[in-house]
């Protein structure tokens, strides 16, 4: 499943790295549900959100001048940060 990380910049405790925002990747695995750290960090009654491991290719993240296009970065991204491509 191809997904795109939403390009948004909300304030607060966010665990989606900036360098992956707006980038397209492939879901590597579904990790199940975890409490949303954006709420948990402030002692709120955190909702459970689905968490995915998403694999990004280097040229998608860093462009044509990347070190080696066949290398990848995997990161855990919460569902509310993802949209289907």
């Amino acid at each position, binding site marked *: 499943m191809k997904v795109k990380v939403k390009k948004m910049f909300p304030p607060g405790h966010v*665990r*989606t*790295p900036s*360098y992956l925002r707006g980038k397209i990747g492939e879901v590597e695995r579904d*990790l199940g549900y*975890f409490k949303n*750290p954006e709420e948990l960090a402030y002692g709120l009654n955190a909702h459970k959100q689905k*968490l995915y*491991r998403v*694999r990004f290719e280097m040229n998608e*993240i*860093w462009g044509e001048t*990347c*070190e*080696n296009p*066949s*290398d*990848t*970065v*995997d*990161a*855990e*991204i*919460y569902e509310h940060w993802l949209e289907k491509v």
Partner: protein
Amino acid sequence: MPHDHNNEMSPSGHPYRKDQDHPLTYWQNLEIAVREILVEKKITTEIEIQETINEMDNRTPSNGAKVIAKAWTDPSYKQRLLTNASDASRELGFDIGPLKLIALENTKSIHNVIVCTLCSCYPRNLLGLPPDWYKQRSYRSRIVKTPRTVLKEFGLDLPKDLSVRVHDSTADMRYIVLPMRPHGTENFSTQALEKLVTRDSMIGVGLPKSA
């Protein structure tokens, strides 16, 4: 004063280092305040806190090495490790709490390396405290952009046909790399293999020692 050295040199000809004492920071004061309240309210004790610190300090990469060596010698354990690394670690008696661990297998065509670009997430229960460089921005920002250059600085020059997979611990998972078993170790016991597994090989910035 007799113990003030000012700009004097030590007998071996080196300048004396400054004491590390400095006024408490805001966060240090906060930690002390919270700790004292918890003790006062009998929620915990000084001994309990000290014991937990000792427990954390006593975790070393030799824990992780036991997991790796077992996976090298027992194919069904390796399968369980790759399916659920948390349960496989518990099987060997490591208390890893609620930690969700994923083992990443290095092969002839894939080399894995771990990082936490956001902070310093690290498989502490199996490897102990992270090395200083793991927490520094230099490693965290460069390993996701130019992993091959960084790995070369660690002494790992990887061929182009080997894919590098960087794993950014951004949320609830922690990672450990399962390195390839060194050549020429077919007759090694599990205990002998454990000694070849280095901390860096389980982070992915190194390889196990050769036989």
